[in-house]
């Protein structure tokens, strides 16, 4: 036999099957490109040298792993589709006299060519685009620098190893699959006598319950810290629910429709309902995949875009002032030293003080029961706990520029969340009359999404404060937490020098003290949130690619199945326009159900996501709502375009 025989045959096969091979190839190229880019950026040395880049590098490595795992799963999925479509062809070769080892050889050469093309173009694409992506990333991160970005040998090696491995495993899978089947089975391929799916009530009910439970948890979660734990439970429940409902729930509903004779025996419903029963049997898993991928795209994009766009707000919430200095358990002498340091820096760095204030507090966790603030030292940390912050009146009056007067048994009260509405409170065994519950205060801005409730209790003076504290905790503690906030005016350079000066000064003290500068923190915020955004867009694109490909393959495989069906219907008297409208109704239903389900999922997830975003100090709910709506809209438009394009492929097959 001619030595190029198999090669010729393999190339011929690839050409003949280009309708299904080409999308697979393009997607493989895309995935390899993305993997290479992500990895090359993550290991870039220039990036590591930038300040605050630690978090972004962690995020990028995380992204690399996710893409790696996802590509393996996804390439296996599409491969199994490909081999299913080609069963008949392979069975024919087998019957015409190619032994299974010859077929294995042919498939190996085919896979080799696909892998070669995919890796060559994928890596080339990666090398070309990685520079661009890197620049985009730097812009997102707010770094105004140009960094060297070269082709990374390590990334190439890892990509080749990973994807070479994936291609090899798909080949082994295919060869094993063919080895196990008889030629006649291969020839018959997909259309073995199809059984009608059974109604599985229990599974359908379980699915509905899982989905309901997931939704319920997502809707009712209240505390942000709880949200993070519960989010994963809810996600798993919703995923289980989605799979079960798509696979069994759909059949149960359709069969119920079929039992309703007056509904079922209508021209429109007759062909649709019975067609859908079969479609759902073959496609339920694929549709559930599309639904979950779509939800993933929507969640990752809407949250990361919101975080990035809402960063200024976040900074505002987290840092009400340019500089905050916190001295826990401090004494007046140390406080004097801090004041000195600040005043000296103001003179030295040529800035002007706009705001300079210190509030002294003493805080501890309590559980509020009626009007009693109970302190239980043995109890562990709990999401339901609140923090009491005792503040002496003197500091409050200076901060608010007011002159409130209080008696010994009177207090002012203020919380960062909803008002308590108490007339008196019991704290440390004594009862205090609430003179006023403040609607707003400079102590801390009101928030809807704060992690914990801070209850500020303003008492007559520092002596009263120590009295309460020492009654509760015993001992004779005379220290206070000094919380200093500073705003200055000056040129950018002067302000930067001042901020750095404060950091330097604080680290020079020998007592417990720390400083937080909005200006200096902004970089690490940008780095983290920009990184999230980058990852969100990257993964969003990847998931979108996967969705598109699944939709395309679904359309094609259904096209071949439906062709036979519609031929028969036309023979027994269905008009061409009726055929068209029936086809349209079915594919519209099949392809828009996952999108609608994804949108429902994301609506139910809204509450829990908002709570989780609060952990990132993100509280701009309306911004998140707009971001989500825009993301959903854009996604729906892309989805629709993909649908329209692939539907054309479908029509061409059917007619």
């Amino acid at each position, binding site marked *: 036999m001619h030595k190029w025989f198999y090669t010729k045959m393999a190339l011929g096969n690839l050409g003949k099957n280009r309708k299904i091979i080409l999308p697979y190839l393009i997607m493989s190229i895309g995935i390899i490109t993305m993997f290479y880019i992500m990895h090359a950026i993550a290991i870039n040395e220039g990036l590591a040298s930038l300040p605050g880049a630690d978090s972004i590098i962690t995020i990028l490595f995380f992204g690399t792993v996710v893409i790696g795992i996802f590509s393996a799963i996804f390439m296996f999925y599409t491969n199994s589709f490909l081999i299913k479509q080609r069963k008949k062809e392979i069975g024919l070769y087998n019957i015409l006299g190619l032994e299974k080892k010859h077929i294995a050889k042919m498939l190996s050469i085919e896979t080799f060519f696909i892998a070669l093309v995919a890796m060559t173009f994928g890596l080339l694409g990666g090398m070309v685009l990685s520079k661009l992506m890197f620049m985009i990333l730097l812009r997102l991160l707010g770094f105004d620098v140009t960094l060297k970005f070269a082709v990374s040998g390590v990334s190439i090696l890892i990509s080749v190893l990973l994807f070479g491995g994936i291609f090899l495993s798909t080949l082994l899978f295919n060869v094993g699959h063919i080895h196990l089947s008889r030629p006649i089975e291969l020839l018959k391929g997909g259309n073995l*006598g*199809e*059984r*009608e799916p059974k109604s599985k009530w229990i599974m359908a009910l379980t699915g509905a319950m899982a989905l309901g439970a997931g939704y319920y948890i997502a809707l009712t979660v209240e505390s942000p810290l709880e949200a993070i734990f519960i989010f994963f439970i809810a996600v798993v429940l919703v995923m289980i629910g989605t799979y079960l409902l798509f696979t069994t729930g759909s059949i149960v509903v359709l069969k119920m429709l079929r039992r309703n*004779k*007056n509904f*079922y*025996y*209508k*021209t429109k419903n*007759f062909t649709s309902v*019975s*067609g859908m*029963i*079969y479609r759902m049997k073959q496609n339920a898993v694929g549709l559930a995949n599309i639904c979950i991928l779509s939800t993933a795209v929507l969640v990752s994009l809407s949250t990361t875009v919101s975080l990035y766009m809402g960063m200024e707000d976040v900074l505002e919430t987290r840092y009400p002032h340019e500089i905050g200095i916190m001295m826990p358990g401090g004494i007046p002498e140390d406080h004097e030293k801090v004041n000195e340091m600040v005043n000296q820096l103001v003179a030295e760095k040529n800035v002007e003080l706009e705001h300079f204030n210190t509030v002294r507090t003493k805080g501890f966790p309590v559980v509020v029961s009626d009007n009693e603030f109970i302190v239980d030292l043995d109890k562990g940390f709990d999401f339901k706990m609140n923090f009491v912050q005792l503040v002496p009146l003197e500091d409050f009056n200076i901060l608010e520029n007011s002159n409130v007067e209080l008696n010994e048994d009177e207090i002012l009260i203020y919380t960062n969340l909803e008002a308590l509405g108490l007339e008196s409170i019991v704290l440390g065994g004594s009862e205090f009359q609430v003179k006023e519950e403040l609607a707003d205060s400079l102590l801390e801005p009101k928030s809807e999404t704060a992690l914990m409730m801070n209850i500020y209790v303003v008492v007559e003076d520092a002596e009263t404060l120590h009295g309460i504290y020492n009654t509760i905790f015993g001992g004779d503690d005379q220290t206070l937490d000094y919380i200093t906030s500073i705003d200055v005016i000056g040129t950018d350079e002067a302000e930067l020098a001042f901020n750095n000066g404060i950091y330097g000064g604080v680290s020079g003290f020998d007592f417990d003290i720390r400083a937080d500068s909005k200006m200096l923190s902004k970089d690490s915020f940008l780095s983290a949130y920009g990184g999230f955004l980058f990852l969100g867009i990257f993964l969003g694109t990847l998931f979108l690619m996967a969705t598109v490909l699944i939709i395309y393959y679904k359309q094609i495989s259904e096209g071949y199945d439906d062709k036979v*069906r519609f031929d*028969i*219907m*036309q*023979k*027994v*008297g*269905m*008009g*061409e*326009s*009726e055929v068209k409208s029936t086809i349209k109704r079915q594919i519209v239903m099949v392809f828009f159900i996952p999108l609608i389900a994804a949108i429902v999922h994301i609506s139910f997830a809204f509450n829990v996501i908002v709570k989780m975003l609060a952990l990132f100090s993100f509280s701009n709910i309306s911004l998140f709502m707009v971001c989500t709506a825009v993301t959903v809209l854009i996604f729906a438009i892309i989805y629709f375009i993909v649908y329209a394009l692939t539907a054309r492929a479908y029509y061409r097959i059917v007619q």
Partner: protein
Amino acid sequence: MVILEVNNLKKVYTTRFGGNQVKALSNVTFSVEKGEYVAIMGESGSGKTTLLNILAALDQPTSGEVLLDGRNMKNIKSSEMSAFRRDHLGFVFQDFNLLDNFSIEDNIFLPLVLAKNDHKTISEKLSPIAKKLGIEAILPKFPYEVSGGEKQRAAVARALITSPLLVLADEPTGALDSRATDHLLELFTKINHEGQTVLMVTHSTKAASHAGRVLFIKDGEVFHQIYRGDMTTESMYQKISDTLTLITTGGLQNA
């Protein structure tokens, strides 16, 4: 009364790049009376299927005309065509053409549901037909659960349920074993005796021997025809056999 009239039918296929022309039908003329049972015989490639496709309005003739119930099929608008076909013609195919996603019952209902009949009317129509064809027991089953003979009887029921003017059968026994073939041919005879006009295309002598008249097609023309008269099925079989021998050996041309 003449139900179907076929006049000088001609069909020429042109290959894809316009090069060669293949004449499938050169000049076919015949007619079918109401209540007749006509078989059209011919070898593979003689133009049987082309003829049937044109009669079923699934294909257009190059020239000539087909009149069904006095209406020229050429003048029927394409938008009305499927309704016309549904109301006037019933089809039985070699490979049954049952839809695997419908139960046998729903398969039989299909043409009526497409014609927008309500459930009550169609179920009333089904029971006498199902009884006549002996398929009552398999109605709730699915095509993959029943035998070939049962599938074909279901297909016959689907053809009959619209009470069509003419039943067109394309090699209805082609995929059946001999027992199922006998059973099906008896059925055709039975429904024909009840007044149903049947036009069957076949190359099985046995199938044709049940018909009242047999037309032979060769090279795209009606070559010969035999009337049953009062012959038994056996002598009809003998006569068809002889005719086929003559056609294949070319003897008849000289006779």
